[in-house]
């Protein structure tokens, strides 16, 4: 069984809420606070707010660390009949050679703990990742109410 989905889910009728550039280290903090703000607006409970914020913090830090930054798109849409917050992290970094490995607990090519990707996956309702070596990485997470 593959851990990852090969095609990202995308619907035309999703409403775009925002688009942000992540460039500096401080953007990791700023943008995760932005995401919490949206989660609050979505009237998610405090635990779900914390889950989403923590998940994106991992993804943002990865973008900053491994890809020198990227772009964050925030959308809302109906997934499985539920209102979902959809966050997409797009970078043009080096890409990930072995996704399966990158998605496993404790695997890190850097000095991290290797829980960013697998941990983020556990914290959200849907996790999608696409990556091409030398082209970049896209991670999309969804959390519904």
């Amino acid at each position: 069984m593959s851990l990852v989905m090969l095609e990202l889910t995308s619907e035309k009728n999703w409403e775009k809420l925002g688009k942000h550039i992540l460039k500096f280290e401080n953007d990791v903090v700023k943008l995760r606070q932005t995401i919490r703000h949206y989660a609050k607006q979505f009237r998610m409970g405090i635990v779900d707010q914390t889950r989403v914020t923590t998940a994106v913090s991992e993804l943002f830090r990865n973008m900053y660390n491994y890809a020198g930054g990227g772009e964050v798109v925030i959308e809302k849409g109906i997934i499985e009949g539920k209102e979902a917050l959809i966050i997409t992290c797009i970078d043009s970094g080096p890409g990930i050679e072995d996704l399966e490995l990158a998605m496993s607990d404790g695997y890190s090519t850097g000095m991290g703990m290797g829980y960013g990707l697998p941990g983020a996956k556990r914290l959200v309702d849907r996790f999608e990742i696409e990556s091409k070596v030398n082209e970049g990485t896209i991670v999309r997470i969804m959390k519904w109410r």
Partner: protein
Amino acid sequence: MNTDLYEKKIPIIKIGNFLIVSIQVDMHDKLAIQLQSQILEEIGKTSAKGVLIDISVLEMVDSFIGRMLSGMATMASIMDAAVVIVGMQPAVAITLVELGLEMPGVDTALNMEKGMEMLEKRVRNEDNDLF
């Protein structure tokens, strides 16, 4: 957003044998690393036997902050001081478990008072070991 906040040092207070650190802002990476070295320096200077780190205002702990906290506990124990994390919000605790992070060597307590008791017990036990 007030970015000035990020530049502020986190105050460290010494009470008796213990250092008390209250984290007051959402830590970005540099601040987290700075705090780590600041605390270790302070342990060295004061020979403190324990460190209480109040994280009650932290709205999330990701693997970066988690690693920083457990790294600090490990280094502090090498310097003969114990670290107790106090006031972790329930939502943060739940999220940490789901993230899969284990923080070896990091003890947690519900609040300052309980954390202080923990440290005192720890120091007392060590004293007893000497005799």
